[in-house]
């Protein structure tokens, strides 16, 4: 009788541990590619860039003007804006947390959360 208890106990322990193990890297995987868009000090949107299958665009409008944002799998960019300096647009695509997109005139910040330490984040930003 105890053999059976032991058998099931070990089986469920293994299942328990494997479920626990599969859960541990999940938060780390999810991070690094979540883009947070802050407008005038408020978080207006958080997008998990890894889950974007179809590219799409949307516009963030404030009393100061607008920014048109394009989202593709793994990256995000401001493609149009009516600010005077267009720094946000010139930043181009970002995919890591090393460089955020800033639009100072419109108080818009697009940053990628987590510790995405990819080299591409910078080279991608310059191009």
């Amino acid at each position, binding site marked *: *009788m105890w053999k*059976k*208890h032991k058998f*099931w106990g070990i089986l*469920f322990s293994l*299942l*328990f541990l494997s*479920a*626990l193990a*599969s*859960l541990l890297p*999940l938060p780390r995987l999810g991070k690094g590619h979540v883009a947070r868009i802050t407008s005038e000090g408020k978080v207006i949107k958080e997008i998990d860039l890894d889950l974007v299958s179809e590219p799409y665009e949307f516009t963030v409008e404030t009393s100061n003007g607008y920014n048109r944002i394009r989202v593709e799998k793994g990256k995000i960019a401001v493609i149009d804006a009516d600010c005077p300096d267009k720094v946000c647009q010139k930043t181009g695509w970002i995919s890591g947390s090393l460089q955020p997109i800033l639009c100072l005139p419109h108080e818009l910040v697009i940053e990628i959360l987590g510790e995405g330490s990819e080299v591409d984040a910078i080279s991608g930003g310059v191009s």
Partner: protein
Amino acid sequence: MKNRPARSLALIGLLAAFALVTFVIESQIPSPFALPGVKLGLANIFTLVALPLLGRKEAAAVLTVRILLGSLFTGTTVTLLYSLAGGVLCYVVMALVYQPLGEKLTWVTSILGALAHNLGQMAAAMIVLGKNVLYYAPVLVLSGILTGLFTGLAAGFALKALRAVKKDR
């Protein structure tokens, strides 16, 4: 037991009432985990007790009454859908394994049932929400094993006590 339908019916009613009260009380306790779908499932103790004590059909009756009335008392039609999907799958698995496993391994029956329950709920969530929720599976496996063990042990002790009472008579 089969020759005594009145006694069987009374016991079904009794167990269903116990299960229903447990279910309603449990739904009033705020979940210690902020995770959807994670709960103790104490009401399952009564399905577990009913299976070996009364039989498959009788246990199904206990479960059906508990789910239908429980959803009526505590929730909405969506709750009913989730409860049904989980409850039915849980019942099917437990009804299949409780005899080969035996009463001493009630906790195994319970864990398998809890896992099936969570699987059913996840399937229902996938259909209702139209989203892939498989990433949530590990959480439900963990909670299924823990809560299943807990309710299974409780049901095992209850069964042992009930059998002892029967022997005394």
